[in-house]
């Protein structure tokens, strides 16, 4: 471990220089300790064997510009939204009345290892603000947007928002999160979510990650789900030079459910990593995961999915599927599914397929007059449709379809 202690020094120095109000103190201490202990892992650490974070440790990041930018915002899709520009929460651009993160102090760092896993620790050490979404029991909060935009002039900034979402009993919310930034700038977006789903509550979270091509995106989502509650996540991982997208979910009460689905669109010079950890900690819970990756150029995709079924979690129903489509000779996909099961009455299955487009399907389409390029596009679209179709909210689905189409047009151009 000692060999790695020093690589996060630049981040640790920045943490030291930050003002530390009382409400964030405990979190920051945990983060700094974890970061000092383990640094940003390289490939010798098993959980990072396909994704080396040392380039992030070596990169130099600058401070955010003092002047507030006023970027052009996309049209609002949800009932309300919270906008971050260059990592700064902008009440003036948000339509959701912001609640100070200090209100969430008792929750910070309490959701399963949300302070100590390396990506989360980096955030814990440096988080200054974030969105606190607190939905009272029984309330349906509708569609809330969380928008993060990095502007052209921001330079290689690093920002570490910590978002907290708490749903009371029977409450529900749909979150549409979009992350964007300019190409060719090595900035770092390091968001962490702590999500607490009370009994019978439902949180549906769609993320569209389209950071600029030179960016680093290190994200970790942590969810605790009580009896009868549901956490749904769909992540479209399409941007950044290096994207690590971790989701840690714990099913803590009977009949809780978790759906983690997503698509990774990976092109030349990109690495996209989805790593899920699902803890079945109560009986009669169901989990579903379907991840699809499309890789072009020398793009590299990673999927690691671990399902841990505790001894009490009888009658667990778990399913995990990971599929990748390699559209070029140089593309690479690494997949590591893991099941660890201590209960004896369990239904758990997983599968993985990695391959090229099916020549029979391609010929069938072309024999019907559809030109090769369009035929390929149809098959790629069809491959992704199965994943996107699972998203219940129409607005989120439309946003995803749009992002997928936009990506494909960029690839095909």
């Amino acid at each position, binding site marked *: 471990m000692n060999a790695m202690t020093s690589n996060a020094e630049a981040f640790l120095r920045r943490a030291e220089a930050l003002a530390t109000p009382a409400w964030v103190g405990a979190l920051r201490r945990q983060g700094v300790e974890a970061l000092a202990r383990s640094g940003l892992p390289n490939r010798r650490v098993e959980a990072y064997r396909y994704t080396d974070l040392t380039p992030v440790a070596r990169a130099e990041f600058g401070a955010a510009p003092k002047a507030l930018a006023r970027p052009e915002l996309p049209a609002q899709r949800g009932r309300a939204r919270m906008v971050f520009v260059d990592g700064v929460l902008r009440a003036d651009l948000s339509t959701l009345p912001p609640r100070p993160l200090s209100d969430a102090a008792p929750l910070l760092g309490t959701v399963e290892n949300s302070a100590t896993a390396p990506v989360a620790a980096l955030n814990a050490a440096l988080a200054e603000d974030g969105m606190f979404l607190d939905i009272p029991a029984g309330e349906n909060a509708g569609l809330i947007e969380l928008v993060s935009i990095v502007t052209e002039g921001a330079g290689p900034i690093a920002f570490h928002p910590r978002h907290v979402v708490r749903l009371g009993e029977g409450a529900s919310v749909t979150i549409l999160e979009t992350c964007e930034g300019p190409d060719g700038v090595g900035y770092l977006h390091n968001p962490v979510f702590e999500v607490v789903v009370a009994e019978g509550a439902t949180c549906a979270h769609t993320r569209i990650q389209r950071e600029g091509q030179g960016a680093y995106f290190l994200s970790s989502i942590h969810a605790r789900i009580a009896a009868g509650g549901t956490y749904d996540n769909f992540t479209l991982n399409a941007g950044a030079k290096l994207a690590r997208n971790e989701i840690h979910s714990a099913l803590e009460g009977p009949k809780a459910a978790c759906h983690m689905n997503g698509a990774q669109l990976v092109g030349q010079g990109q690495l996209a990593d989805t790593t899920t950890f699902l803890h079945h900690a109560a009986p009669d819970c169901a989990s579903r995961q379907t991840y699809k990756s499309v890789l072009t150029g020398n793009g590299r995709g990673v999927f690691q999915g671990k399902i841990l079924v505790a001894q009490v979690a009888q009658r667990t129903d778990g399913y995990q599927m990971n599929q990748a489509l390699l559209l070029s000779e140089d593309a690479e996909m690494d997949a590591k599914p893991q099941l660890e099961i201590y209960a004896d009455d369990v239904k758990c299955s997983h599968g993985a397929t990695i391959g090229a487009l099916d*020549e*029979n*399907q391609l*010929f*069938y*389409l*072309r*024999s*019907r*007059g*559809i*030109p*090769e390029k*369009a*035929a390929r596009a*149809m*098959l790629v*679209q*069809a*491959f*992704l*449709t*199965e994943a996107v179709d699972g998203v219940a909210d129409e607005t989120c689905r439309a946003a995803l379809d749009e992002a997928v189409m936009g990506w494909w047009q960029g690839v095909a151009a």
Partner: protein
Amino acid sequence: MLKIEGLTAEIDGKQILKGLDLEVPAGEVHAIMGPNGAGKSTLSYVLSGREGYEITGGSVTFHGKDLLAMEPEERAASGLFLAFQYPVELPGVGNATFLRTALNAIRRQRGEPELDAMQFLKLARSRMKELSMPEDMLKRGVNVGFSGGEKKRNEVLQMALLNPSLAILDETDSGLDIDALKIVSEGVNALRGPGFSALVITHYQRLLNYIVPDRVHVLVNGRIAKSGGKELALELEAHGYAEVAA
């Protein structure tokens, strides 16, 4: 309309077609019969442009153009249609989207205006009715979960919509019960006319009771061993390929 001269082709270094000559004039339906391994499916794939076949000699002209120099989609736009022996399943591609994309791709290549969703649906529904196809087959994924008979009817539906000048039916009768066979045959017969030719590839004479051919050719060992009128099919059924083609 279609003229094949001295066609030789191989796959994985193995010669399958060994100097095949065949001519199909406009408006005629020709049957190709032959034993397993004679090269029937190879012929249909070579004509439709599937990759993996090496053309080592001969020529194929279609409407006066060099068919073998065209991409599969260009052959389709020129009026060639292959009804697959094993139609391919396309999960995630809706049948309606598929049919409309194909139809408009061909119309575009032919310089005809594209059909909008309403115009297309109207056309597709009327064709489906003629083929006794339930309308929900438009909503399902292409051939996904279709029975053998439904897949073959879907092939004939595509043919009816794309309106080819030459249809190659590759063992379209395989896996069909008698009712489905009748429906499929009626679908093909409805297209018959001076602008429509067909190459009906089959093992059995049975299909030719419903799609009555103008000419029958016997394909043995990579070339046409014998040609004749529709009565040749009956002769083959009664005496077998070995005797007739000897």
